[in-house]
């Protein structure tokens, strides 16, 4: 009962904070925290399959793309679509797809989850690390399909004039929902089974756990929320093209969950905020610099060099990240026992 009251109070306080920030921040600051919020949604869900279930996957960019396209197609008005598709006429079904924002988000999430299910069958039936390579490949395939199906995706031109519904109230609330869902999964028989198969798959099977089913649940749940995050991203950016959904996106998320701690949702939230601000603040690294009086050229990619070194060093020397696989609340519990 006590924990229920704390939970309700925390949610109420978070909602108040979200509405407060929405009403009081400058539009520049708001778009920054919306960005961070979307990253948090993506990283939280990514951490379920990678951190909690321990199945190394490189999927987010693919599922984000599916969610983004799905949502965008549902919310762009029909007239706009007729003008926008430049290479060929839009397919009839594209014109028929019309829905309000929440339904469109849900459709994006469900489409991603469905594709995750289709991938689960070949990948989880076999042992080994095929999930990583299949999901990495999947990210490329999605792009190839987006490029080559102009009547659905408008090809390389992408979709624009996507209605801008994704304000901080939407994003913030969905961060809370995602976080709660992940925590509820972790503290249930399903979360325990995910952790068990991460620690020792054979032993989990020997306890009667159907590990195929549990991995598929984790993967579909991750994909669902990545699809939703993709929908929010599409509406927030108002323009999407196939080239936005590259592996770079996945790499940011990987850094967030590794720094926050694989398996720790509270750690992920903290790391999403740190990395979100960090990426902004380190933008100067990619531009011209004056070092000891010498002017260097602009170095696009310098930030990424630093981030990849950061990732490698974390893995080598601080594998558990900020929070290990524990939630913030568990650090307090442990003291008592």
């Amino acid at each position, binding site marked *: 009962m006590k924990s229920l009251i704390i939970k309700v109070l925390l949610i109420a306080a978070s909602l108040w904070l979200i509405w407060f920030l929405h009403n009081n921040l400058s539009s520049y600051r708001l778009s920054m925290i919306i960005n961070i919020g979307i990253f948090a949604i993506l990283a939280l869900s990514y951490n379920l399959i990678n951190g909690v279930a321990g199945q190394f996957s490189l999927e987010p960019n693919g599922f984000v793309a599916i969610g983004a396209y799905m949502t965008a197609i549902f919310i762009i008005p029909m007239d706009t679509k007729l003008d926008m598709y430049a290479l060929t006429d839009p397919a009839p079904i594209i014109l028929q797809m019309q829905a309000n924002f929440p339904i469109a988000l849900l459709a994006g999430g469900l489409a991603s989850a469905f594709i995750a299910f289709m991938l689960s069958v070949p990948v989880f039936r076999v042992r080994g690390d095929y999930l990583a390579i299949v999901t990495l490949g999947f990210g490329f395939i999605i792009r190839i399909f987006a490029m080559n199906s102009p009547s659905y995706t408008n090809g390389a031109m992408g979709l624009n004039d996507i209605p801008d519904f994704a304000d901080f109230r939407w994003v913030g609330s969905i961060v809370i929902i995602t976080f709660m869902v992940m925590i509820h999964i972790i503290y249930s028989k399903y*979360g325990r089974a995910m952790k*068990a198969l*991460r620690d020792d798959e054979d*032993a989990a*099977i020997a*306890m009667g756990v159907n590990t195929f089913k549990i991995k598929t649940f984790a993967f579909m749940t991750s994909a669902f929320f990545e699809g939703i995050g993709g929908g929010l991203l599409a509406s927030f950016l108002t323009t999407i093209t196939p080239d936005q959904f590259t592996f770079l996106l996945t790499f940011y998320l990987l850094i967030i969950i590794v720094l926050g701690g694989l398996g720790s949702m509270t750690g992920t939230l903290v790391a999403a905020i740190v990395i979100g601000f960090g990426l902004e603040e380190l933008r100067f690294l990619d531009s011209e610099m004056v070092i000891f009086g010498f002017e260097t050229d602009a170095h696009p990619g310098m930030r990424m060099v630093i981030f990849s070194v950061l990732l490698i060093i974390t893995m080598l020397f601080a594998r558990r990240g900020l929070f290990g696989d524990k939630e913030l609340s568990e650090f307090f519990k442990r003291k008592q026992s």
Partner: protein
Amino acid sequence: MSSALLKIHNITMQFGGVTAIDSLSFSVKEGEIYGLIGPNGAGKTTIFNIITGNYQPTEGNVNFENEIITGTKPNIVVQKGIARTFQNIRLFKSMSVLDNILIGFHNQTHYTYLEAIFRLPRYFGHEKRIRAEAMAILDEFNLTKYANHKATDLSYGNQRKVEIARAVATKPSLLLLDEPAAGMNPIETADLSNIIHKIKRDFNLTILLIEHDMKFVNHMCDLVTVLDYGEKIFEGKPADAIVDEKVITAYLGDFTHA
């Protein structure tokens, strides 16, 4: 004693031309403690892996509760009532002792994924029940005070006990113990054999165990089968095994090699 709970019928297992088990048969009656003994590499663990469905035997079948279970997936075999421990302890390293036990209740916890996500009443009901049951099992093993400790922080002997407790949590009728006393000191071994007798009685178990230590086997088992190079060289009372010439040769052979 009642009828046979587990019947190993004419099992042969070959790995790429090498015969690990050669047409082996034996049966374990309900309520027995049955020992499977023999020198290293005799094929004891292979038999366990065949019973639990991890290996598909080249020939022969396994009959459990009058049903042929060969070819059944390992996680289904558990649901049919066979639980196991591993030769090298395989606890869930990042989890607490209690959570390790709770995994054993996985298939007895009946709420769906969505019920867990939305925290519907069945979630609370089942979680409360299995937590109480898990604590009762920990109590049986004198592990209650370690419930919230990380499993791998426990002593070696206690980790063994957690592993057995975890297997008992799946509510098996047949418990397979793979060298339960390995690496234990005499006091721990004595404690373990008391606990095994106790849980056998309290949870109405039949036990098949693999062991090296003849003294332990002599003390624990009603019947034993002795394996050497995948072949059965003796079946009968443990007291008779110790004086059997073939068994002695097999063991001495093992000693000279080691």
